[in-house]
C-alpha cells in the first residue's frame, strides 16, 4: 500500500539530499561534530524515508539483500584492516600510521584558527568511512527485517 503521489514525489526529491548530508557528516568526522555512526544513522534515515513513502514490497524488490550484507562485511573488514595494516609496517596495533606522513590523509594539522583541513588526521577518516558504510548497511537491514511483518516469517 503506497502513500499518495505527493508524498512519493517529496520523498524522491528529499532522498538525495539526506544521503549527501549523511555522507558529509561521515567524511568530516575529524573536523566537525559527527563521524562514522552519526553519519551512517543519517543515511539510514534516508532509507527509512523511502520505505515509508513506497510500499515495502517494491522497496524490497529494489534493494537486493546480498548488497546490504556485503556492505556490512566490507565496512567491518575495512575498519579492522586499517588497524592491522599498521602492524605490517612494524608499528603497534591501531597506531595512526598515516598521520603526518604526507600520503593519503597525512597533512599535519595547521596550527591556530583555520577553517579545517580535510586532508589531515591519518586513518581516522578511513575508519569513519568504514563505520559509516557498515552502519548504513546494518541499520537498513534492521529496518527491512523489522518492517517485513510480525505475523508471518519475515524477509
Amino acid at each position: 500500500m503506497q502513500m499518495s503521489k505527493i508524498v512519493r514525489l517529496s520523498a524522491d526529491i528529499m532522498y538525495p539530499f539526506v544521503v549527501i548530508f549523511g555522507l558529509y557528516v561521515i567524511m568530516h568526522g575529524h573536523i566537525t561534530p559527527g563521524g562514522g555512526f552519526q553519519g551512517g544513522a543519517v543515511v539510514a534515515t534516508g532509507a527509512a524515508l523511502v520505505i515509508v513513502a513506497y510500499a515495502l514490497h517494491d522497496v524490497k524488490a529494489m534493494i537486493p539483500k546480498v548488497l546490504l550484507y556485503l556492505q556490512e562485511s566490507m565496512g567491518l573488514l575495512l575498519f579492522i584492516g586499517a588497524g592491522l595494516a599498521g602492524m605490517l609496517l612494524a608499528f603497534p596495533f591501531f597506531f595512526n600510521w598515516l598521520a603526518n606522513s604526507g600520503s593519503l590523509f597525512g597533512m599535519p594539522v595547521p596550527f591556530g584558527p583555520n577553517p579545517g583541513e580535510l586532508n589531515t588526521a591519518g586513518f581516522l577518516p578511513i575508519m569513519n568511512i568504514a563505520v559509516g558504510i557498515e552502519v548504513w548497511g546494518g541499520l537498513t537491514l534492521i529496518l527491512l527485517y523489522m518492517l517485513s511483518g510480525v505475523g508471518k516469517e519475515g524477509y
Partner: protein
Amino acid sequence: MISPFIWNNAVVLTVAVPLLAAFLCPLIGMFTETGRKAWVLAAAAITSALALFTAWKVYTYGTWVYVFGASVPNLTVPADSGGIPVRIMFEVDAMSALMLVIVAILGFVVILYSTMADDKRSGKAGYYTLFLLLIASIIGMVSTGDLFNFFVFFEISGLASAGLIAYRVEKGRAVEAGLKYFLVSTLAGIFMLFVIAILYGQYNALNIAMIAERMQYTSLDKLALVLIIGALATKAGSVPMHFWTPDAYGLAPSAVTALLVVASQASLYGLFRMTFTMYNLTLNAVTVGWILIILGVLSMFVGVTMAIPQKDVKRLMAYHAISQTGYMLLGVGTGLAVLGNVAMMDAFGQMAMEGGIFHIINHALYKGLLFLTAGAIIYRVGTRDMNKMGGLGHKMKWTMVFFMIGALAIAGIPPFNGFASKLMIYESVYLFNPVLAIIAMVVSILTLASFVKVFHSIFMGPQLPEYEHVEEAPRPMLWAMGILAVLVILFGIFPQHVVNYLITPAANALIDQSGYITAVLGGV
C-alpha cells in the same frame, strides 16, 4: 624461533584474529560451506595458540602491558601528558593469564564440537560470526586494563550470548530464554556505566591502575562498590540474581553453553579485579569479604537444592553451575576477608584464594565436559527429558565414560581435579569458620547424589526399544570431549604442579596490588 612480530604483539593478536575471522565469516560462507568450517576451525586454533603463548610469556617474564595507538607498545605514560596514562591499554598479569588459558582450551574445544553438532541447522553465517565474537569479547574482558574497555567487551559478550542463546527458535522457548538473559545483562551493563560515571567524575581517570592509585574511599566510592559487585555477580550467576541461568544454559545449543560458563567466569574475574586490585586495602576488607562469602554460601546451597528435582538434564547442570560458582566466591571471599592481616593470610588465606582460583579452571573443564556430553546425548536421542531416557549405556559407551569422568570430578572424588581444589577450600575455610566448611561438604555430598541419579536414569537400565537406532556420538564431538576429559584427569593426578605453576602466581597477583600499578606507572 618465534618471529619478533608475534613475540611483541601476541597479546593484541589474540583479540584481533577472532574479530577478523568473525567479520570474514559471512563472505566466505557465501561461496563454500566446508570452506567456512575449515576457516572457523583454523581461526579458533590460531587464537588458542596465541592465547597460550601470551599466558606462557606472562608467567615467565611478568606482567605484559601493551598500549594501543602509541609509537611503541610500552609507552604507557606519554612525555607530554603530565604523568597520566592517557591511552587504552591491555595489561595481562598472572590472573589474566590463567583466564586466557581457560579461554584458549575451551574456545578451541567448543568450536571443534560445534562444527559437527550444529551441522544440519540453517543460517550458520550469523552463528559462527557471533561465536567468534563471543570468544573475542571474553578474551578482551580478561586482558584489558581500562575500565571503559571492560564495559564495552562486557556488552559485546552480552549481545553475542543473547543472539546465540536464541538461535534455534524452536517454538519460541529459546527466544524467551534469550530475552530474559538479555534484560538482566543490560541492566547489569547500565549499573556498570553508573560506576564508570562515578569513578570518572571523581578521579578523572579510566585506567584501572590509575584509579587504584588515586582511590580514596569516599562515600560515592562505597556506592560504586555496591553497584559493581551487584552488576558483576549478576553476570556470574550467583544467588539472588541467578534466575537467568537455568533458562539460558538449558536452551542454548550445547557448545554455546560451555562457552557461556567461561563468560560467567570472566565476569567473576572482573569482580575479583575490581575488589582486589582497584580498591584493595582502602575498602573494609572484612565486611566485603563476608558479603562475598554469604553470596557464595547462598549460591552453593540454593543451586544444589534446586537441582535435585529437575527433569531436564541441561537445567540440572545449569543449577549445578550456580552451585559451583558459590565455591569460587567462598574461597576468594575468605581470602578477601583476611586481606590486611598478614598472619591469617599466611595461615589459610592464601590457600583459600588458591583453592577458589583453582576451582575456576577446574569448573570450566569439567562443566564444559558435562555440557558437551549432554549435548551429544540430546543430539542422538532428540529429547531433553531424563524420564524418557534410559539404557543408553549399551550404545553410547564413550559418552558414558566421559559423563562418568565429569560427574566424579564435579562431586569431588579423587583422583579427579574437583577433589584437589575442593580440598584446598575445605581445609582453609575450616580454619576461618568451621560452619562454612561443613556447609560446603554437605553441598558436595548433595552434588554427588544428584549426579548419581542422572547417571542412573540416562545410562543404566535395559535397552529401550525406541532407542535401538541410537549410535555413538560423531567423531569430532568425541575428540572434543576427549581433550577435556584428559585434562580433567591430568589436573587431578598432578595438582601440585598446576598449583605451583599456574595458580600461585595468579593468587599473588591479586593480593599484591602494587605490582599492577607499577607495571603501568613505572614505579613510585
